[in-house]
């Protein structure tokens, strides 16, 4: 067990510490929850990470856990741990909007498998988090409901699309949250908020109850303050599920068991094609420092090649939008969601309900995907993108013949300003350059804080991304933990309000 710092506030406890103390009756689930609710009441007016807080229900659930513990039961490895859920994860009887007007009023009629497993492990859902509409965005600014702010700098974006879950954990509202990652939507906001984010191997976690965006890459994963907590959380939600035919039957194993082992001699692949000039000055300095830290931890750096890195964004925005255009066809005003009041025939009902319900970025992506799949353009766009993707898969497979893991910066810059990229969709897309390859190829990947932009004077967090072979989550966690020890990061956001000019 990690040591607990003297005088730590209850809301600062790690997931592991909370579960251990609740299980041993040192502290009750209700006391933990009250501490997190009080912390949330303090920070939420600053960051707006939640669309809804389940205060009454969470109190009932915590009290029920305490009764079970008093009766001698063990609620499980997440006993009494308050968790927040991105608003695209279904929890029976609760509103679910995906950050979209088109789902205003929708109530989830069942619970996602991942969420069911959290409940079965003793977790206490505290609320649902803001997100970019249908998980489309890198700043959380595409939510139809509210802007979420970065806890380190209230004038900066929290990243996206899981901006709410990342901001909630960074601000100390909850020690653990869950998001979805289609092209970087867990890792990028985790990086920008200075916390740990995990995108598991494609198929590792059931997507039953997750609203679909791009089905060939969507994965659910945890966001936490430490690598150990994220490993524990993934252990709970991972594993086969008959309700998701694409969910892998590969055994899960224990991610915590070997996590403290050192990484001496482990070969860490460094992608030759990463151009430090494409990073901000601070990110470039930090990237070099991260490589030095990996060496300091005993790893051996080896050069690997990913010539298609520069094609990743283009491939991603063809493949993901094509799939989105098909997945989002279900929002037609007939079965659920917004129905236009003005249509008097079925065809107009489709056009009007969709046009009124979807926001600009979702429409833009549906349009792009429809174009890429349309007659006459399919081969040149969708077909071409799939071909380049397969080449990328082969390149990464070759890299993993020599390297145990492959690292990149998670993002090319620290958090950018609110409003900075909203009018330039392509500039927004380019912030996903390093996260999209692992999504396209389906690799397990973690974003770990790698220090802050102190030299650039903004103090904003930066992050290292570690990718592994399919289903090699345990290795990825072990490298991440070794790196985390070297960095000595503490999640202590400053909630700074003044704008600080500097390197982005």
């Amino acid at each position, binding site marked *: 067990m990690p040591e607990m710092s003297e005088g730590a506030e209850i809301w600062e406890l790690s997931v592991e510490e909370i579960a251990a103390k609740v299980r041993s009756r040192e502290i009750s689930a209700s006391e933990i929850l009250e501490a997190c609710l009080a912390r949330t009441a303090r920070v939420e007016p600053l960051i707006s990470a939640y669309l809804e807080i389940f205060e009454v229900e969470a109190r009932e659930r915590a009290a029920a856990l305490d009764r079970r513990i008093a009766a001698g039961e063990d609620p499980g490895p997440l006993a009494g741990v308050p968790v927040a859920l991105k608003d695209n994860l279904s929890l029976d009887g609760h509103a679910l909007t995906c950050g979209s007007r088109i789902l205003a009023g*929708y*109530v989830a*009629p*069942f619970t996602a498998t991942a969420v069911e497993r959290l409940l079965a492990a003793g977790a206490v859902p505290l609320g649902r988090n803001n997100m970019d509409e249908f998980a489309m965005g890198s700043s959380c600014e595409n939510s139809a409901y509210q802007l979420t702010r970065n806890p380190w700098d209230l004038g900066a974006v929290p990243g996206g699309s899981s901006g709410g879950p990342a901001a909630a954990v960074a601000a100390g509202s909850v020690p653990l949250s869950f998001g979805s990652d289609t092209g970087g939507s867990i890792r990028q906001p985790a990086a920008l908020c200075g916390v740990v984010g995990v995108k598991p191997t494609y*198929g590792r976690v059931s997507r039953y109850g997750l609203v679909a965006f791009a089905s060939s890459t969507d994965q659910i994963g945890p966001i936490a303050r430490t690598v150990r907590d994220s490993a524990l959380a993934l252990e709970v939600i991972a594993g*086969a599920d*008959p309700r998701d*035919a*694409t*969910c*892998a*039957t590969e055994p899960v194993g224990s991610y915590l068991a070997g996590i403290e082992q050192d990484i001496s001699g482990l070969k860490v692949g460094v992608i030759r094609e990463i151009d430090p000039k494409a990073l901000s000055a601070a990110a470039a300095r930090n990237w070099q420092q991260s490589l030095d830290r990996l060496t300091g931890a005993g790893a051996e750096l080896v050069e690997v090649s990913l*010539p*298609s890195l*520069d*094609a990743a*964004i*283009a*491939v991603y*925005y*063809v493949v993901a939008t094509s799939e989105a*255009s098909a997945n989002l066809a279900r929002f*037609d*005003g*007939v*079965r*659920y969601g917004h*129905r236009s009041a003005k*249509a*008097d*025939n*079925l*065809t*107009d*009902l*489709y*056009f*009007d309900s*969709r046009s009124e319900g*979807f926001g600009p970025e979702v429409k*833009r992506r*549906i*349009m*792009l995907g*429809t*174009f890429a799949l*349309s007659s006459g353009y399919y081969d*040149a*766009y969708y077909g*071409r*993108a*799939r*071909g*380049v993707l*397969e*080449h990328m*898969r*082969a390149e990464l497979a070759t890299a993993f013949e020599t390297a145990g893991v492959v690292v990149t910066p998670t993002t090319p810059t620290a958090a950018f300003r609110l409003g900075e990229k909203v009018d330039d969709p*392509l500039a927004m*897309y380019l912030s996903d350059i390093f996260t999209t390859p692992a999504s396209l190829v389906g690799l397990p990947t973690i974003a770990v804080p790698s220090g802050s932009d102190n030299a650039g004077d903004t103090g904003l967090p930066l992050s290292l991304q570690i990718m592994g072979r399919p289903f090699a989550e345990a290795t990825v966690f072990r490298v991440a933990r070794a790196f985390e020890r070297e960095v000595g990061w503490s999640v202590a956001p400053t909630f700074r309000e003044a704008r600080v000019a500097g390197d982005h």
Partner: protein
Amino acid sequence: MALTHEDVKKIAALARLRFTPEEELRLTGQLAKIVDYIDQLQAFETAEPDLGSRGVEEAADQTAPCLPREKFLANAPASLDGFLLVPEVKGGGDA
């Protein structure tokens, strides 16, 4: 390729989306820029998928109870006697 205003109108009809003329123009500019960027894919090497490799093994189909009708219909914008209610099927569709 240079994406045109006419292309955008045609795609919008396929996607069952309606835009105002101003929105169409703005979208044409934005999509044209994105499609230009995507055109760089022509310069990258491609490969065929390795169909022999083991992907995620799909589970066998099994019958199981589905969502109860009343729970499903609770989210429907309009229903009648246990069925979804929609307006007249004929007509419409003019952008």
